[in-house]
Every structure is written in structure tokens, then in C-alpha cells.
């Protein structure tokens, strides 16, 4: 049926790049409309307090200020946001839902919570007016420490619940308590993984314009979920969904927080545009981003692993605390991801995992690239490392000993995943990925020859190698429409937004393969509700899986229409037809051919009769909704060198073996992995939001919150294994978060190895200060100094790239 080149799996260069490289791509802040006003938000200086009054009279009087709004000015429009993700049906689950409000009323619950909105003729004037507003807050003690938050008499973030418990859930498989007695060893530790910022280089932004003549509202929003934003806004504003168009144009990085909805600014900027009858723009600045955009990652795990003498896992017991911030609109996605991901690629007969989500006076927590999976991998891989050491086993061997074998699929872990479906792995070949990684990093050679030689020369080099599973490609569904236009051009519209993942290219590749044309002839449109208005968004490593399969299916349906029409037009049997180079030909008779564009025109006649029931045009819409997510997997391996004097860690080599099923474009996959590892390195060594006892963020700038630079991230050697998913026609699995998830676990093991077992790394990030404290038994260590080592002062950033 198909002739010519095959595009699935090819390294097609990105079709969207020319626009981005020349500065001509439209980002939200580039929207400029006649008469546009500018918004700025007054945000709480206090993390916790009673909001007794807000005086905006001086701000209203400032020339250039058009309007100032507080909670009291919003009337019925003031209401808490939606609970986005309902809790899964876990027996005995406790869930206290408290969602964010548009503007604070009665109380402020985190520093940076919005109190008032100023709309003015320019952003400069709007910010001037913020200084005119007088806020009367009676401060309350801030809830910042997770354990203290749960103590009797702790100050309460939400008084109505009577405690700071946001949620409590236990998931159990087998009978850990009974099985533990048969263990040869039980390894028990406390692990801590701290909070960071997603730090997309583009901050958030919303521009809204109401057209009174057409009675249509257009909103440009840096969201990962334009369709749910449109639907929600229509409901809140009392408009029909068809009156609201939400455009997520080019987005400068998402990484999770841009899937959060509704941010107060998303609720208020469109409302203000309607009320004032002029377009309104709000663009977040970087400092706001550190307070007003959601964050993730603080969890504290008390975990234990029971193993047999041969290294076989008997079971895992884990009790953990999860910081959900001041509100919990995103439900339990993150802690359930942690709970599920901990099981990794291993057979774990007995599992008992309990978490408590805790309200704190910190910004809201929602998923950030990895979304709790990091913690599961970190805890399990660290426990396996410790077990291997106690058993005198090789760390690769203990993993191999416990891998689910290739014939174990589908494997039901008997607990629920974030999509409320049973955590069931669809496919995988974990030993093969480990073999590739062992070979690629040169494990045997390093351990037997290289490391002893370097150690003898006084160098502290070490290797880390860990496995992971990433549950990806969850439902509920996405859709796509494929249209062949009379010009022969093909348009693909899909509901997911795009934040740099290459959808304009990968989705075009999927269509090209089916319709027999060059991908550059396929124009993909994403994130515009006028073009496509069914779908949920880009999150959880699901775009290529869920939207990708919808695109593929829509193209297949268009091809069926093409063949039927062409068979008529050419007087040939469909089975004789070939699609190539934008036309349909009769096999072996190139003279008998018809252009796809001509067929499209023919399919949309202006006059004459058609067979009743005929659908016009060469167009089809398809949806894809998997029954459950699928399981991507991989192995990260790193070689590091630690400078014992400065406690800086240099990454000498980094290898990722990744299995995302069928890759659509390996270049794009590798880009995702390399970038994910960079974020993982940031998490592992530098990125920590540091809070004072009063709930103030101490490092709310890129001067003080360190992102990895080109000097810190090595070139990652990436290899693929391919175990197609049986859960979708393309066999794809997700890849967006894979690079970020296991990096800290791999690097922790490598640093321990480099230091010859002198320390245990149980806390992330592992800054030079923390490593120094570990080595010297300092207070901030969080881990065990197994023996004293070097003695010099630590300073500066953590790593450097190998020369």
C-alpha cells in the first residue's frame, strides 16, 4: 500500500525550528492588541496570616490606573478553583480538598498568594500602583516543617479540617508484616528529597480580549491544557464554550506547572477584559514565578527493604510525608506516582506503603517533570544499594536477581496507579536494558581495572547504575483531525498544547507515513481550541502515545477515503493503488494517477448529486483512549569524580539506555532524554528552594536558585531498546520525563562509590555543603558519615563536566 520513504522512526529535522530560530514564533508575551491594558498582582509578603483589610484607594487614584480589584470586588465570581484530580478509590483513603482562590479573602496561606489585581495603561504603571496598596495582615506562625505540621497544637493552614492532613492513603500488596520475619536482612533508612522549581525559561502569562461585536472571548495562555481552560472559563464567565477561544501558542517550556489550572491569573485576566471592555495582558516576572507558579518535590520517606540471603526482595515497607503546599487542587497524583514507581522493574511480593499529604504555608504543589516518580526510584534504588552492600553482592547482580522476567507481562502489581487503573505493566525487557547499560558504561572494566588504578592514584571516582520504570501514556483520551485540502496540503489539528516536544514534526511524520508524502507538506496545529476542542492536555509523558495514536488513526481513516475515491476516479481496484508523493497511483502504471488535492476537490462538489450518506471532503477525526497507562523503562549509569576538598562532583560519563517502545523520531527522543538528565542533575546537586522559618523563600531569583549550565551537564550517551507497547497501535510509550527521574539515584550511588562507602547519600539535593557535612559529620548532612575523610572547606557549585 505504501511506497517511497518511511518516516516513522526517522530523524526528521524539526519543522517548527525555522520560526523559533528567527524570533518569529508567537509566544504569549508577543501578543500585542490595540488598546491593551496591563495587569500586575499584589502578592502577600506573609506566608500565613489573617487578612484584615486591603486599602486600594490610593492605587485607584493613580493616573494611568484603570481598575483595582480585591476579593470583595469580585462578587459571585470569587470562588475556589476546581479540584482537578479526584482521589482514586483506595479503601480507607482520607482526602481533604482545599483549592486555591482567585484573590485572598480572610487569610493568606503562602507568601506570594495574590491579594489584589491592578489594571493600568502599562505594566510599569500597574507595578507603581502596587506600591500604593496598604495591606493589613496579622501574621500567624507559618507551617513549614512537615513533621511539626502534624504535631498536636500546630498552627493550621485550613482550620476547618482540624489538622494539616491533606490526605492519607495506604496501599498494600501481600502481607509485609508477616513476610518480614523470614528476611535475612532488613534495611531501614530515612530519605529526604527536597522541593525545587520547574523554572521554565518562559514565565507564565495570560492575554485576554473580548470582542463585543462577535461576542467572543479570545485568551492566549501559557497553558499545557488549552481545552480544559476554555471549558472552565466558559463555565465561570457564563459563556457558551463556543464563545471562548483559548490559544496556547508556542510555549517556552512547561515541565508540569503549566498544566495546573486554574491559576488566579487565568481566572481574573479574562474576567477583567470582559468587565473593562479592553484587552488585558498579564505576564509573570521571574520573582513571581518563584512564588505564584506551582512547585514540587519535598517528600520524607521512612522505608525498609526486606531481602533474602540471595538478594531476592521479600518486601518493602514505606511510610512517607508529602508537602502539598497551601492547597491541593491536583489531588494525589504525585504521592501515588511515588508509591507506584517505587516498585520499579522488580518483583516485589509484599508491599505496604502509606503516605500523608501535609498542608504547609508554601506555594501549591503540582506535578513537575517526574511528578513523584523520582522519589520512588530514589528510595528503592538506594535501598537496593544498601542491601547489596550488606549482602556483599554486586549492585548490578542484585537488580538482575529481582527484575521481572520478559515473560512476566502483563504484570499486575495489585495497587492503583494515578489513572485509577490497576498498576499493570504492559511490556518490558529489563535485563536487556541493563546489559546494554553495563556494556556502554564499561561496568566490569571500570570496577575491576580502572577504579582501583585511579583510587591507587588518590582519585575518588565512582560509578552509579540504576533501573527505573516510568508509567506513561495515561488516558483519558486525545483526538486529532486530519484534512487534505484542495491544494494538496495536509492539516492536522490536535487538542494538546506543545511546549517544545516537537509535535509539529512527530505528528507530521505519523501522517506522512500513512498518506505517502513528505512531512514538510503536513502542517500540524496544536493548542488552539478553534481548531480542535476535545482533549485534556500535554502532561504525564502522554503526547506521543495518546495524541500520537489519535493522529495516526485519523490519518488511516483519511487514507481509506482517499483509496475509495481514487479507485472510482481511476477505475482501479483499491488493492492496486499506491499512495506516494502526494498522489495516488495504480501500481505498475504510473500514468494512471490522481493528485490528493484533486481528490479533495472532487470530494467536495459544488453541484450535482452524491450517493446519500456521503461525507464531504478528505477529512477524518479520531480519538484514542488507552485502557490504562503503559510502562517505559530504562537504566541510567554515571561515572563521577569527587573532589574531597571542595566536595565538588564532576560527572565524567553519563549513559542512558531507554525503552519507550516504538520511537517516532529518535532525534526528538534523545533530545528529551538529554534535557531530562540535565534537569535531573539540577535536582541532584543544586536545585533547592530554601525557606525561612516564617515561610519566606530565601532564594527567589536565578542568582540564588541555581539551574545547571552548559558547564554542569555532560553529553549523555543514549541507547535505545525497543519493547513496543501492546496497548496502542503504534507501540509507543512516553519519554518526556524519563531523563529526569532516576538521575539523582544514579548520582547518589556514584558519589558513595567514589568515596569508598565513607558516606550514605540519603538526601537530595546533594550540594557541596551537604556532602561536606556528610563527610565531616556536620548538622546539615542528612545521611550517615560512615567514616571521616577530607577536611577542607566546601564552597561553590557542585559539578563540572569532564574535560
Amino acid at each position, binding site marked *: 500500500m505504501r511506497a517511497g520513504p518511511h518516516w516513522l522512526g526517522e530523524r526528521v*529535522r*524539526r*519543522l*517548527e*525550528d*525555522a*520560526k*523559533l*530560530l*528567527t*524570533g*518569529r*514564533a508567537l*509566544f504569549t*508575551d*508577543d501578543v*500585542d492588541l490595540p488598546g491593551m491594558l496591563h495587569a500586575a498582582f499584589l502578592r502577600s509578603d506573609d506566608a500565613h496570616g489573617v487578612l484584615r483589610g486591603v486599602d486600594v484607594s490610593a492605587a485607584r487614584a493613580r493616573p494611568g490606573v484603570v481598575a483595582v480589584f480585591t476579593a470583595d470586588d469580585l462578587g459571585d465570581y470569587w470562588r475556589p478553583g476546581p479540584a482537578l484530580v479526584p482521589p482514586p478509590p483506595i479503601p480507607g483513603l482520607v482526602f481533604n480538598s482545599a483549592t486555591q482562590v482567585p484573590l485572598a479573602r480572610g487569610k493568606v496561606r503562602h507568601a506570594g498568594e495574590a491579594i489584589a489585581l491592578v489594571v493600568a495603561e502599562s505594566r*510599569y504603571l500597574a507595578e507603581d500602583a502596587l506600591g500604593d496598596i496598604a495591606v493589613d495582615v496579622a501574621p500567624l506562625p507559618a507551617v513549614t516543617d512537615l513533621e511539626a505540621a502534624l504535631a498536636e497544637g500546630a498552627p493550621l493552614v485550613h482550620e476547618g479540617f482540624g489538622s494539616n492532613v491533606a490526605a492519607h492513603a495506604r496501599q498494600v500488596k501481600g502481607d509485609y508484616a508477616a513476610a518480614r520475619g523470614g528476611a535475612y536482612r532488613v534495611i531501614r533508612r530515612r530519605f529526604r528529597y527536597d522541593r525545587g522549581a520547574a*523554572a*521554565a*525559561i*518562559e*514565565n507564565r502569562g495570560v492575554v485576554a480580549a473580548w470582542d463585543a461585536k462577535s461576542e467572543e472571548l479570545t485568551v492566549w495562555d501559557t497553558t499545557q491544557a488549552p481545552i480544559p481552560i476554555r471549558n472552565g472559563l466558559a463555565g465561570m464567565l457564563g459563556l457558551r464554550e463556543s464563545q471562548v477561544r483559548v490559544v496556547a501558542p*508556542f*510555549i*517556552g*517550556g*512547561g*515541565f508540569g506547572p503549566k498544566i495546573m489550572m486554574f491559576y488566579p491569573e487565568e481566572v481574573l485576566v479574562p474576567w477583567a477584559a470582559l468587565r473593562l471592555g479592553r484587552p488585558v495582558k498579564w505576564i509573570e516576572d*521571574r520573582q513571581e514565578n518563584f512564588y505564584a507558579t506551582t512547585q514540587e518535590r519535598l517528600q520524607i520517606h521512612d522505608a525498609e527493604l526486606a531481602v533474602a540471603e540471595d538478594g531476592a526482595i521479600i518486601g518493602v515497607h514505606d511510610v512517607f510525608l508529602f508537602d502539598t503546599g497551601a492547597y491541593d487542587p491536583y489531588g494525589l497524583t504525585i504521592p501515588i506516582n511515588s508509591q507506584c514507581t517505587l516498585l520499579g522493574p522488580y518483583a516485589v511480593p509484599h508491599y505496604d506503603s502509606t503516605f500523608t499529604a501535609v498542608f504547609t504555608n508554601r506555594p501549591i504543589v503540582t506535578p513537575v517533570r517526574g511528578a513523584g516518580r523520582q522519589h520512588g526510584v530514589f528510595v528503592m534504588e538506594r535501598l537496593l544499594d544498601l542491601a547489596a552492600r550488606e549482602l556483599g553482592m554486586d549492585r548490578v547482580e542484585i537488580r538482575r536477581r529481582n527484575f521481572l522476567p520478559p515473560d512476566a507481562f502483563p504484570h499486575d502489581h495489585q495497587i492503583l496507579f494515578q489513572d485509577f487503573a490497576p498498576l499493570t505493566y504492559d511490556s518490558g525487557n529489563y535485563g536487556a536494558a541493563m546489559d546494554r547499560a553495563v556494556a556502554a558504561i564499561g561496568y566490569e572494566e571500570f570496577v575491576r581495572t580502572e577504579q582501583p588504578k585511579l583510587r591507587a592514584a588518590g582519585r575518588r571516582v565512582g560509578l552509579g547504575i540504576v533501573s527505573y520504570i516510568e508509567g506513561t501514556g495515561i488516558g483519558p483520551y486525545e483526538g486529532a483531525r486530519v484534512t487534505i485540502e484542495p491544494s494538496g*496540503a495536509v492539516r492536522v489539528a490536535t487538542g494538546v498544547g506543545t*511546549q*517544545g*516536544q*516537537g509535535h*509539529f514534526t512527530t505528528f507530521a511524520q505519523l501522517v506522512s507515513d500513512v498518506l505517502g508524502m513528505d512531512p*514538510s507538506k503536513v*502542517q500540524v496545529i496544536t493548542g488552539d481550541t478553534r481548531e480542535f476542542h476535545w482533549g485534556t492536555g500535554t502532561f504525564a509523558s502522554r503526547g506521543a502515545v495518546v495524541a500520537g495514536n489519535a493522529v495516526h488513526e485519523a490519518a488511516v481513516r483519511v487514507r481509506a477515503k482517499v483509496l475509495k475515491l481514487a479507485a472510482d476516479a481511476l477505475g482501479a481496484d483499491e488493492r492496486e493503488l499506491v499512495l506516494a508523493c502526494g498522489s495516488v497511483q495504480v501500481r505498475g502504471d504510473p500514468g494512471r494517477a490522481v493528485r490528493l488535492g484533486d481528490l479533495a476537490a472532487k470530494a467536495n462538489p459544488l453541484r450535482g448529486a452524491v450517493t446519500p450518506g456521503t461525507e464531504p471532503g478528505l477529512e477524518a477525526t479520531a480519538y484514542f483512549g488507552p485502557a490504562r497507562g503503559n510502562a517505559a523503562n530504562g537504566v541510567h549509569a554515571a561515572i563521577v569524580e569527587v573532589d574531597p576538598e571542595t566536595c565538588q562532583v564532576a560527572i565524567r560519563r553519563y549513559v542512558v539506555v531507554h525503552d519507550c517502545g516504538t520511537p517516532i523520531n529518535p532525534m*526528538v527522543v*534523545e*533530545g528529551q532524554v*538529554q*534535557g*531530562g*538528565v*540535565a*534537569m535531573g542533575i539540577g535536582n541532584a546537586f543544586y536545585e533547592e528552594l530554601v525557606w525561612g522559618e516564617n515561610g519566606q523563600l530565601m532564594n527567589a*531569583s*536565578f*542568582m540564588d536558585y541555581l*539551574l545547571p*549550565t*552548559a*558547564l554542569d*551537564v*555532560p*553529553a*549523555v550517551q543514549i541507547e535505545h531498546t525497543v519493547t513496543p507497547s501492546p496497548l496502542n497501535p503504534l507501540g509507543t510509550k512516553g519519554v518526556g520525563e524519563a*531523563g529526569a527521574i532516576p538521575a539523582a539515584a544514579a548520582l547518589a550511588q556514584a558519589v558513595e562509590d567514589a568515596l569508598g562507602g565513607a558516606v550514605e547519600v540519603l538526601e537530595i539535593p546533594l550540594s557541596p555543603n551537604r556532602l561536606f557535612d556528610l563527610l565531616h559529620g556536620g548538622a546539615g548532612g542528612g545521611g550517615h558519615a560512615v567514616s571521616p575523610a577530607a577536611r577542607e572547606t566546601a564552597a561553590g557549585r557542585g559539578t563540572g*563536566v569532564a574535560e
Partner: protein
Amino acid sequence: MGIPVSLTVNGAGVAREVEPRLLLSDFLRHDLGLTGTHVGCEHGVCGACTVLLDGEAVRSCLLFAVQAHGHTVATVESLAPDLGGATGAAAAGPGHGALHPLQEAFREAHALQCGFCTPGILMTLVPFLAEHASPGEAEIREALSGNLCRCTGYKNIVDAVVLAARRAAEAA
């Protein structure tokens, strides 16, 4: 309260009255509509707003528009001027030969993902390549270290610079 400024932007003379406090980044983006220059932090760390001032890479968020009076500014829009006005299919399709060689190398090496930081990175690297005909990896990483990219992990950017330098050497 407006102060008159006149300067050359992307080869053309520009005269405006501006508030003294107006940032050069905002002047370029909002007064002149040159939105290719992006703003990521407004405190001079991320490098997304990098432009050339008299040929030298500077952070346009750390300068006031009035400081550019009498100077020459070049933004990312100056690198491939022939592509002006190109829309979706035209800019994305084949025959994008009008790209600057460094832009072309970025595309080939997959050196951008979301593309938000990319204009600033290009404007940092253009003068760097003018002064370093055949830079080594360490030099390139040093030159790049003042620009934050959250998507790519930098490797492909380094590869793109190597590729552009090699091509320039071959063409010379």
C-alpha cells in the same frame, strides 16, 4: 517626561521618546515590536534577552533604552532578514536557505526544543564565533555558560556550534 533616543536597530534608524526607566528589552519588544528578543528573568542571569550592542553581546534587560542612544543594536531578527513575514508553512518548509548558518546548524543538530532561550543563545554565539573560528568544546561551553536552557541539556547546542564553525572553515 519622554526622553528622545535615536539609535540604529537591525540596520535601520529609530527615533522615539521613552521614559528613562524603560528597559531596552521592553523597548525592543513592545515599542519596536521586535518580539524575537525574549525575557526570562529580568535580572541578567538567564540570557534569553541577549542582543548585540555595537556588536557585543549584552543583556537587554540590564540596560535602559536611553543607554542605547547613539548606539547600534542587533536582535535575532537581523540574522535572517529575508525570512521576514514568512508564515507557518513557508518558514517551516524546505528551502529555508535564508537562515543564518548558525541557525541552520541549530536546526540540523536539534539544538532547540521550546525555543524560548534560543534567540539569546544565538546572539551570544554570533560574536563568539566571529572571534573563535574553531573553538573547542570547553571554550564553547564557557561561552554558553551565561545562557540558561531548561530543555536541551546543552549538548546539541555545543554540537551545533562545532558544526557551524566547521562549515565556516570549509567555506573560507
